[in-house]
């Protein structure tokens, strides 16, 4: 398979970026999307050029590091999939690929396709935890938790913090990310105690970081690689 790639190149946060066009040829269909970029970078090294910087790590869809907008879609068009889980066989019918970083004011571009997502860390720091210290935990089975509640908590807790929800949102809202964390703890008796304060603090922090508000476009749940439901946002709003 042969592709024409238009890749966003940007030296650093301050500079202006632009698309640069590259060709990659003889790509095997079992090659993953990121392995295709690896091959491009090998070519660039051969030519003596600076490689394309892109974030990635586990390459199995769980660490949340990879973050590419492909032909306008965060993590590509395939549902329930992070960028690192895309394979070139998914692009068999395409010749040109436009590859960009997440675009949001709160996620400044660091270089090329990599963005800074520390705003997410700061939102968690503002209240995304249960205030328990090591040593004070009671016996694990002393508090029974309904299976449905545990499952509900789990469904929210699987967020990988990749930021695709922000990248796709016309308001660059982080509502899905924030709501998933709030709802994870809200579902559990041990997390319920701090719910009100937690929600307030995390939402305040989200606003301070410059993320927009939710206006129910629901694009976030369609691009979420873990299919986290927007019903989390509704539950969060009930707490306010």
């Amino acid at each position, binding site marked *: 398979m042969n592709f024409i790639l238009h890749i966003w190149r940007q030296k650093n946060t301050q500079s202006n970026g632009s698309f640069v066009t590259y060709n990659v040829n003889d790509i095997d269909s079992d090659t993953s999307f990121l*392995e295709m970029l690896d091959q491009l970078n090998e070519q660039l*090294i*051969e030519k003596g050029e600076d490689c394309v910087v892109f974030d990635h790590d586990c390459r199995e869809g*769980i660490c949340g590091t990879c973050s590419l907008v492909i032909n306008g879609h965060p993590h590509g068009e395939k549902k329930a999939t992070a960028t690192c889980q895309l*394979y070139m066989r998914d692009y068999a019918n395409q010749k040109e690929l436009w590859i960009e970083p997440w675009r949001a004011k709160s996620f400044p571009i660091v270089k090329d396709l990599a963005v800074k997502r520390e705003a997410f860390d700061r939102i968690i*720091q503002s209240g995304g935890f249960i205030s328990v210290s090591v040593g004070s*935990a009671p016996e694990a089975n002393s508090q029974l938790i*309904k*299976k449905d509640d545990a499952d509900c908590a789990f469904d929210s807790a699987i967020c990988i913090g990749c930021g695709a929800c922000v990248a796709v949102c016309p308001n660059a809202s982080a509502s899905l990310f924030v709501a998933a964390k709030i709802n994870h703890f809200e579902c559990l008796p041990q997390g319920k105690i701090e719910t009100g304060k937690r929600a307030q603090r995390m939402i305040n922090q989200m606003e301070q970081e410059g993320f927009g508000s939710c206006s129910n476009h629901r694009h976030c749940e369609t691009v979420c690689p873990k299919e986290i439901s927007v019903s989390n946002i509704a539950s969060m709003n009930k707490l306010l």
Partner: protein
Amino acid sequence: MQKFNSNVPTGPLENRWDKHKFDLALIAPQNRKKYNIIVIGTGLAGASLCATLGEAGYNVESFCYNDSPRRAHSIAAQGGINASKNYQNDGDSTWRLFYDTIKGGDFRARESNIYRLAQLSCNIIDQAVSQGVPFAREYSGYLANRSFGGTQVSRTFYARGQTGQQLLLGAYSSMSKEITSGRVKHKSRCEMLEVIIIDSKARGVVVRDLVTGEISSHIADCVVMCTGGYSNAYYLSTNAKGCNTSATWRAYKNGAYFANPSFTQIHPTCVPPTGDSQSKLTLMSESLRNDGRIWAPKNKKDCEKNPNDIPEKDRDYFLERMYPAFANLVPRDIASRALKSICDEGRGVGSIVNNQRLGVYLDFSSVVEKMGTDKVKEKYGNLFDMYESITGENPYAVPMKIYPAPHYTMGGLWVDYNLMTTIEGLFACGEANFSDHGANRLGASALMQGLADGYFIAPQTVANYLARGKFEEINNNHSEVLAAVESVKSRIDNLMNAPEPKHSPDYFHKKIGSILWTSCGMARDKKSLKNAIIQIEKLKSDFWKNIKVTGADKDFNQTLEKAGRVADFIELGHLMCVDALDREESCGAHARLEYLAETGDAKRDDENYGYVAAWEFNGDNPLLHKEHLDFEFIKPTYRDYK
């Protein structure tokens, strides 16, 4: 350097940790803020340690190479975490978890350490539940368990196939709480490149900011490395692409002993490799072996057939045949070797790589029939989805294919009972140390060890070290600090300006990976190890002559990052082979072809090799120190899983 002394307590095994804790010196709460601790790496071990030290009141400065601590590779652990709660009333106990772990490790680890680990296992579950980790539950509201390889009890706690993610996010949330309290200062996208040692004590680190390329020194009263394992030395492994040995290797080159480097775990249930462009292998949780049945065609001519067309009588359920008692749940090293031998016989299935079909079937058809698709989906859904997205095949309809891949390294920095390396004030936790898994790690034990070290052990032993020491003030202009910074800079210069730049970091990474996979992987022998050592020496000199790094060093440069890591993997690969060559026995994952029973099982030589091999850096001729392993409470036996 501290004496090479394991500092293992004496007395009844059950009381050793309690007694030891009592003997450790304490620091009063109001004085703790006067101490500074650096933590490198914020995966399970590092994040849990940062959280705990912060809660206690110490000043912690932490670094990780990812863009957030939430992305450490602990997150990818799927199956679960062991604890001897005995909730299933199936005869579990601290003693049994201890026994299973030491036997699983083929009697190459310390009794005292493992007993402590088994004791702490229950506290970890309590802690995680109170943090809001959503473990699987029964309809009654009680915690659920499942069984895992190498044991006959059901003691594994799990959160669907994402247990590592949930535990890491738990530790990360606690750490975040301490960042808010101001006691933990964390910096992401930073890589540690040197240890600063002053008056024989670890007093700080030199790090490179991966975005700006800036080199900076950081001073503290002690340093803890929680930097994970080195499976990526093999190039293709289940580790994240960034996982590396650089921090532990710098420690080694500064005098910390490296223990059992050749003890590397090749995990049986991974998605098989398909071709040359492959950059990593993906693990399918071992929990799949609970229900799934592993088989290969009996006849070579069936290997190309659709597996659904191969009748039952022509299938060889080889693990069930070879190990009737444990069947598909034999420990990882045993399962991996059996898989390899089936494929070597020519009975493998799937894609042809290097003239061989690398794969056997992991079949869920009878389970789907019995439990129904929905039940299977609930239990293993995300694993099946993952398999489908990688291979393009539907595992509900066609059996999955699996092949072993490097996954975990039991070897690591040598530490004493206090988790301190042979450099005073330099500690190592989690996969970065060698301490608990001997020659083979049992499933669902890595999360347990990382969290035991981070939440419960290191916070106590680090405090003891600080309480007993005197730490004079050091500033960034100290000659040793400047020398460490200088050595980092000159190394980067050498990477950027090789005399004849020709090949990319990946080129060299694939080379070292292929040497290690062939000679120091699932099967090893004297001749091929000797040959590998010569090849690696040559590769090392080629590397420094021909490494080609484009871009600039004062910039976000992933090629430069990779080059530095590959340079360390090459040197470590050398030590792995030296260690494998020295150990003229088979034990656990270390299978020397000369010392295997006819059945393919490992033949240990306790009399001559009942030791931990701790290697001291000495140029290209590392020095071997032996820590003899005493078994006071358990008699090492032949590891029989039949």
